């Protein structure tokens, strides 16, 4: 059960809505910009899963940190990242978050505690566990959140990290976005269980199933998990049941999914759901929502223009940053 809408202030509800629409439109526009030749690399659109990132991040504090995945734009925007610098990174320009060295798969914003998207399935899970260890060693009340997909729960990194995190009662929340596919392979062909939250039992950890298409349910579940983490009760495995509307990556037509299945999930669109709920409650008028959408269009147009105007990197910059410290060069 999600939080009753009535319990949240209007402003907060609209902020959830705004972030979800921002993610949706950021991704749709990125797809167009890639097709138009502005973005050279891969994109793994987050469309359809917006409620997971937005609901989860709404429950976090500024001192918390996040590790993300190959499908990371949504997590980053939900945390408050700047679309200008994100598009600049996708364009491969100097003003990008990673100075054009990372692209979609490696984007970070250290000021937001966003420790990075990750090109390796399951790669962020041990890092979040280590970040939680550091938070605990320093006596911070911070929590680490690791997002990953259903596919990642078959990696050793997932099992090793859950075991360690539970053993040491680390303040970490493992958020599995079960979108029913590991790349092109349906869940019933990649693991013998349906409810990934059950895997928490093996590690004596709380496992919770949440509606990943309901931002309010994600907010509730994450608030509870964060409360446990902050009070020293250790980690939680949250399984968010959700669906990606598009293929695994931009260009994947998703022919391995039935039209019926896609339709069923389209009807559960997390943004439409929230919109309907907001309007039914009649605390929000259609024109408020339209206003939000218009602002986002303007913001994203400006972001794309900023990216286009940002300078290309100098080829020589490719030799910088291999090492952070002195004595880096192994050869002249």
């Amino acid at each position, binding site marked *: 059960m999600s939080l009753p809408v009535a319990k949240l202030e209007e402003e907060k509800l609209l902020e959830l809505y705004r972030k979800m629409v921002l993610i949706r439109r950021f991704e749709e526009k990125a797809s167009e910009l890639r097709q138009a030749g502005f973005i050279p690399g891969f994109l793994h659109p987050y469309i359809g899963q917006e409620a997971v990132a937005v609901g989860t991040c709404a429950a976090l504090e500024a001192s918390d940190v996040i590790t993300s995945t190959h499908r990371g734009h949504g997590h980053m925007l939900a945390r408050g990242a700047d679309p200008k610098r994100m598009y600049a990174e996708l364009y491969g320009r100097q003003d990008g978050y*990673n100075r054009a060295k990372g692209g979609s798969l490696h984007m970070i914003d250290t000021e937001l505690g966003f420790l990075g998207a990750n090109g390796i399935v399951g790669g962020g899970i041990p890092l979040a566990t280590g970040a939680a260890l*550091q938070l605990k060693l320093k006596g911070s009340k911070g929590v680490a959140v690791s997002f990953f997909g259903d596919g990642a729960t078959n990696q050793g990194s997932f099992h090793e990290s859950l075991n360690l995190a539970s053993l040491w009662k680390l303040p970490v929340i493992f958020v599995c976005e079960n979108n029913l596919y590991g790349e092109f392979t349906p869940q019933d062909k990649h693991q013998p269980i349906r409810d990934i939250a059950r895997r928490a039992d093996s590690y004596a950890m709380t496992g919770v199933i949440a509606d990943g298409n309901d931002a309010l349910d994600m907010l509730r579940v994450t608030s509870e998990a964060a409360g446990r983490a902050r009070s020293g009760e250790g980690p939680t495995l949250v399984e968010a049941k959700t669906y990606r509307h598009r293929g695994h990556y931009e260009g994947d037509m998703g022919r391995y999914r039935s039209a019926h299945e896609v339709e069923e999930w389209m009807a559960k669109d997390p943004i439409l759901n929230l919109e309907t709920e907001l309007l039914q409650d009649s605390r929000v008028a259609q024109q408020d929502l339209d206003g939000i959408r218009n602002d986002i269009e303007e913001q994203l147009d400006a972001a794309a223009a900023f990216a286009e105007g940002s300078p290309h990197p100098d080829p020589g910059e490719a030799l910088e*940053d291999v090492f952070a410290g002195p004595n880096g060069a192994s050869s002249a």
Partner: protein
Amino acid sequence: MTTMTYAQAIREGLDEAMAADNEVFLIGEDIGEAGGVFGVTKGLWSKYENRVLDTPISEEALVGAAAGAALLGGRPVAEIMFSDFSTLAMDMLVNQAAKTSYMTGGRLTCPITVRMVTGTAGATAAQHSQSLEAWFTHTPGLKCVAPSTPADAKALIRTAIQDADPVLFFEHKMLYNLKGEVPAELDDLPLGKGKVVRSGSDVTIVSYLKTLHEAVRAADHLERDGISAEVFDPRSLVPFDRDGLGASLERTGRLVIAHEAPTTNGFGAEIAAIASESFWDLLKGPIVRVCGRDTPVPYAPELEGFVLPDAQRITQSVQEMMKQEVARA
């Protein structure tokens, strides 16, 4: 000056680093109360209990935990009990830690130190004896250190921990009981500074870790034959002391490279390439490698002895090199 073993020297270096910086912690398997399989961390757990962390046998999780902590300012030192087990942590080392600085445009760093317990301990066979340093020297973003004496081990573990980048610290098992003098006030030693451990004028033997000591013994034998061998210890492989190598070749004009790791694509191949690219004019003849043979490390002592280079093989290779030069002349 105090005489201590290589293992004690590393322990002292760790102890000093932990005393100096609260962010330094140790993480690994059986390193706590047990003091580590080779006893390197003995006594540190009782001194810094909550900063010496025993983990499950989960190499990916323990290196990942170190790397994740380092992203938030920690200075972890992870121990890989046998460097062979680093295969299980490869993603964290190669895809995560090594690339953090680069792929974030320098906006995030991952200053971990990973102690890699390396080489044969005698009949330790194929999965507990490997010398894998070349894998990591081939990954931009990792620094690779290979100290051969107690004093260097102590100085370099301190440097490694302070370094802003991920550093793999290769320790040879058969050196743990090697004794040497360590100054009470040990100077800081930067990475990338090699050392001439024995001067000579006819040939430079570049070597490190246990094989360095074989090279010194070989140089003693060769001296009796009237061949003056210089032995050069690079001390770190990344960064590598090219200038030190060049200066030695200026004196000798001949180069032999000896290491325990297999010959093909070993770090010796890189040293040979550096010498031929940068110091060709100094070389009087072909470069010779005296390295592990291209096999896994076998179990029986006579098999292991055949595969791994020792003083005798280095001596013979240098003698052969000199003979062939005379024949060519």
